[in-house]
């Protein structure tokens, strides 16, 4: 076992970049104390090492993961990379080092601190993406479904398949405000692209009336004798309410521009 050196890796933020950090760690027989993005501030205490993203190196690491510790571990690491866990890069590197040593059983080492941290982070990610599959609300503008979310984790890649299968004949856009990314779909093709700022037009009459119908349904379905706001809050935390139709007219406040959207959807 090596000591963690007084070294910080800086990488470009891509998954391939992180795999190159793993390569470097083995190549140089060293374990960094942190792995950071280019925008992170310099610290005086540790020396910073720039890790260049290099496809052949990344591919060698990528191919070795399923071989040494199984496909489940690769899938796990890919999802861990989407989480909002602080220092996730370092934990992933430490996890992979464990995996190279112990093989597929690394997935069972649930009481190990590194594995435990990542398992909980991935669970949080999975839970958030599952919740948003239900909590996301679309509004319909010129027959395009547009929805906005503000997740903690980078959930778009995990939501993509669900919505593409659900609305195969529609055109839709899901804007992730936290990460400045959007999932766009038109029949039989989808992409996740960076979007900075979008503005939505006023909803038309039909859209308005379905929103009102939904609010009416939501308010009516409650059995008053069982009113239980605490239970509702634990099932559906308040941070999700902002974009949900049943809680008033939040849609207008978001600065989405539809012109860009239309262009994106009809290339």
């Amino acid at each position: 076992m090596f000591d963690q050196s007084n070294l910080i890796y800086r990488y470009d933020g891509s998954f391939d970049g992180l795999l190159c950090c793993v390569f470097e760690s083995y190549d140089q027989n060293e374990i960094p104390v942190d792995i950071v993005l280019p925008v992170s501030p310099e610290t005086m205490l540790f020396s910073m090492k720039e890790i260049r993203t290099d496809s052949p190196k990344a591919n060698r690491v990528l191919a070795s993961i399923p071989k040494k510790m199984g496909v489940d571990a690769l899938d796990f690491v890919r999802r861990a990379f989407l989480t909002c866990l602080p220092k996730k890069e370092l934990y992933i590197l430490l996890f992979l080092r464990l995996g190279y040593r112990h093989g597929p059983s690394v997935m069972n080492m649930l009481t190990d601190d590194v594995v435990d941290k990542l398992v909980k982070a991935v669970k949080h990610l999975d839970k958030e993406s599952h919740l948003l599959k239900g909590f996301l609300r679309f509004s319909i503008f010129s027959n395009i479904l547009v929805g906005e979310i503000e997740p903690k984790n980078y959930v778009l890649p995990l939501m993509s398949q669900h919505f593409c299968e659900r609305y195969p004949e529609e055109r839709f856009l899901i804007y992730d405000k936290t990460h400045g990314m959007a999932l766009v779909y038109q029949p039989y093709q989808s992409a996740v692209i960076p979007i900075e700022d979008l503005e939505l037009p006023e909803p038309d009459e039909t859209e308005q009336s379905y929103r009102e119908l939904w609010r009416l349904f939501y308010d009516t379905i409650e059995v008053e004798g069982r009113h239980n706001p605490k239970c509702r809050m634990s099932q559906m935390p308040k941070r999700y309410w902002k974009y949900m139709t049943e809680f008033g007219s939040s849609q207008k406040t978001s600065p989405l521009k539809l012109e860009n959207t239309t262009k994106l959807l009809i290339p």
Partner: protein
Amino acid sequence: MDVFEKLKILTDAAKYDVACTSSGVNKKTAPGGIGSAAAAGICHSFAGDGRCISLLKVLMTNVCAYDCKYCVNRKSNDTPRASFTPRELAELTINFYRRNYIEGLFLSSGVLKNPDYTTEQMIEALRILREEYRFSGYIHAKAIPGTDSTLISHLGMLADRMSVNIELPSQSSLQILAPDKSKHSILAPMGYIKNRIQENSTDIIKYRHAPKFVPAGQSTQMIIGATPDTDFQILNLTEGLYKKYKLKRVFFSAYMPVAENTMLPTIDTKPPLWREHRLYQADWLLRFYGFAANELLDQNHQSFNPYVDPKCNWALNHMEFFPMNVNRAPYSDLLRVPGIGVNSAMRIVKARRTATLNFDGLKKLGVVLKRAQYFITCGGKALEGLKITQDAVLRSLMSEKTYLENFPHQPKSEQLSLFEQLPMIQSSLTQEDILKCLTSPT
């Protein structure tokens, strides 16, 4: 009448139905269509009462020929009436579905004219959804007792799940409160649906593309607290329904007084949410934890312990089973430990392949040590510093609120055997205490 008014009336009339999940079937969209279904189910919202909203839950009509005493829609009740046309309902469903408000439709109905006519209306709504919109989302349809079996069969080919409401747990309760329904009229369609599911499963083996009959299975619900039926009777009935009719779920609904009637609890009675909660906990133990109904309750104990959940109660009465070594015990035994659920039991089995578990590790796996600590050892050792006093055990097995409400003066250091004590505590309760417990939500 516009669609707003109809939606309001027909939602209001449907809200007491509880079987509103969207789980049990995985489905891809039909070619050129819309919609899919996820086996785990997806909740789209939670109402102010904390219950999940996953389906557009409405009645086809609240006009009803029946006069069930407990029901808001009974013939003799003076309430506004409305009916959806099949097309209105289909359009509403699709428009909600496109906006991702819902997973699909939950369609029940009052009995308009007669059961057959009502079912024909429901079939037409579902036909428009499935054939015209090519909708592959989730549909749950109610089988109206007394409907011709050919129509039930037709409805079942269009729906993902069907249910027939038991309503009241015994024939005698039915006779008094639902004179138009009988045990037979409820169990006959249930048995028919079960047989059709079985036939269909062999069809699917023979012909790969045979259309599926209620692929998500059938469920039922019953009202708790409107009649004198005990928890023991209800739980036994539930177990029987799982075994005999292969039901996917049995739902319980605490009785909400909606009618003044000498045979019913008075209109100011609070719904027995506490009892409902315990029944759901016990139902979970039947379905996922390998418990039998008669392990949880018996002839001499017909009601659930108000203070501790059914699993804790069972454990306290079976201390010969404990303490259990978590590093060795089989999965099925782990499931019997209070504080260890299905997930943590699976994680224990996985994790102990690579390392010996200690209490610290168990915490990481999600075991609720506060409860489990009294029932387990790690390699022969109990948790260090663990004091088994009645006070400590009780406190950890009950919710803080219940404990403080009921035992405010319990001396802390008293060393008593809790396990002999519990029945006594129960019997020393005043009627008032029990009532308080029954009516406050846990």
